[in-house]
């Protein structure tokens, strides 16, 4: 178990290092920030001064080496715009993103679990088909478009809920539901097919041969086995959800890390972009580790190996 954990930790560190490297070079492809930072009437001399101040006049490998050294010391640099530590800006926004993403995740997963189980326990093929079609349709609609439809219906037409910003629980509803329904559709389809797959297994036939009731066979025998794929996908997907959150945050002007990153990219505020991406990747890696551990709890076969 310890060796397993050590190996996973090493992999995680490598992942984060890869993300940092990719982020560093990608933001430099976006263009020179000094042009955007200075007023239009700035002279070439002013620009050159700023470039040397930011270290942009040095070669790319040198910049990269300095960057890595600083990161190792916990220094992600100052925001080019606001002249405050980039990490502080990100950390300030992190609670908002976690609030949105976790609400959507938990809501989607719990609903998928309940609906999937009830659907299996009360076998109406028509009801099941209808629900699966709804899930399919929801999954086919992109998050940003679904978000706009929600705003149109609940904020513009009905006037029930605020469409922008963060503050009260009402502000959370629209973005959370937008994300959660997507999660729900995904998990429901997955959970349904996982349960369906278990139905044909030999051990289920054994349980019937014992005289066990259908309900208890589903709950006691099939459910634990069907949870394994659900946990795996949910773990992988929680990371992707952070990506979807970027879009959702932009649509609903939700002051989270995602929106900060998008703004910073357009302002070429590199340190903030990198700090934001780093934060997201840390969360992602942490989630994956948790899933691996959870898997070992659920499946006795994993515990040994």
């Amino acid at each position: 178990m310890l060796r397993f954990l050590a190996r996973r930790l090493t992999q995680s560190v490598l992942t984060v290092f890869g993300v940092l490297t990719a982020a560093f070079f990608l933001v430099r492809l976006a263009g020179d920030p000094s042009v955007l930072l200075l007023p239009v009437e700035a002279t070439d001399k002013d620009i050159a001064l700023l470039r040397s101040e930011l270290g942009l006049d040095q070669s790319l490998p040198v910049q990269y080496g300095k960057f890595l050294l600083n990161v190792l010391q916990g220094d992600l640099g100052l925001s080019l715009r606001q002249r405050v530590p980039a990490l502080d800006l990100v950390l300030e926004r992190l609670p908002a993103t976690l609030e949105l993403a976790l609400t959507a995740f938990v809501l989607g997963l719990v609903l998928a679990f309940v609906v999937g189980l009830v659907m299996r326990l009360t076998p109406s093929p028509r009801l099941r088909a209808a629900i699966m079609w709804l899930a399919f349709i929801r999954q086919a609609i992109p998050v940003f478009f679904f978000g706009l439809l929600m705003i149109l219906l609940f904020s513009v037409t009905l006037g029930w809920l605020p469409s922008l910003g963060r503050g009260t629980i009402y502000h959370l509803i629209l973005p959370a539901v937008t994300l959660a329904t997507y999660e729900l559709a995904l998990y429901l389809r997955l959970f349904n097919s996982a349960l369906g797959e278990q139905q044909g297994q030999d051990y289920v036939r054994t349980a019937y041969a014992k005289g066990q009731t259908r309900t208890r066979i589903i709950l006691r025998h099939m459910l634990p086995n069907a949870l394994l794929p659900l946990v795996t996908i949910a773990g992988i997907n929680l990371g992707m959800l952070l990506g979807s959150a970027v879009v959702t945050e932009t649509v609903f002007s939700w002051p989270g890390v995602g929106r900060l990153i998008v703004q910073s990219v357009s302002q070429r505020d590199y340190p903030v972009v990198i700090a934001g991406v780093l934060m997201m990747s840390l969360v992602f890696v942490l989630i994956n580790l948790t899933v691996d551990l959870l898997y070992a709890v659920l499946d006795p076969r994993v515990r040994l190996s």
Partner: protein
Amino acid sequence: MTETTAPILSVRNLVVEAVNASGPVRIVDGVSFDVHAGEVFGIVGESGSGKSITMLAVMGLLSGRTRLAGGEVKLRGKSLTDMSREELRRVRGRNVSMIFQDPMTSLNPVLRIGNQIAEILEIHQPELSRAAVRDRVIELLSLVGVPSPERRYRQYPHEFSGGMRQRAMIAMAIANNPDILIADEPTTALDVTIQAQVMELLLEVRTRNRAAMILITHDLGLVAETVDRVAVMYGGRLMEEGPVEEIFSRPAHPYTVGLMASRPRLDAAPAFLYSIPGQPPSLANRPSGCVFNPRCALQNGREICTTKLPLLDSVSTAHSAACHFSREIDGWIGEVVTADRNSMREAP
């Protein structure tokens, strides 16, 4: 064999259909047999002959695309086929138990062995306390020869070897002292060295519990050693039925003759293995008349074999066969054996 004359299990004209794209296909067709108290009844036949499906139908475990299309199953005079689902559920695991072929997949991988055995007690004897259930499971585990049962109780199926898993399955099957044990190829998936041990155990616990047993297998050697009476299935129908010594010494159906001739034998050249010519029938396009006629060497082009379905007819007191020409068999067996020898000479 027993003092009671009424059979424990009586199956009459059982018909099972599989529904496929082109309509229903009869995969079990008019199967009838009786199993008496304390006896071991064997069902032999090649893969796809309908042995296992017949047993699942008896248990009320047909699922998916198969369904009971006719016939009756009676357990101690009570009709299982007329029972409601709920009544039938109470019979399963209490009066009738089943042991399946593959112990690797027949146990739930995420539940402890002990709990899986305990479950069958909890279902049918809810009055037992937790401690009593636990004690009984440990007793059962040691009864079926699982060493250190207290420790094994807490283990998962993947921590058990194949033979041990099948022992656990047997413990489960005998937990409620059933009237009848159905063992569907219980040793096929096991190592040869383990097969004999598990079979011995199965027969031992059966004797101890005074349960009748149905043994489904394609291992004729096993049948000869362990079974009292045997039925031969082919293409979803019973071809022949009778006491095992009689079936082996005086088979009355050409299929049985072919089956016997196909056994690998120690007294013959190992290079040659007889096989019945042709392929098992496609049940969607069942041959008219006798289902075995396209492969039958005894038919000799006689019309009745392709026009009239032969029914089980007694050959002697307890022995019956479904062949229009059972009486010709005695003279004919020689021909098969001769053909057998001739081909053997050709073999290197």
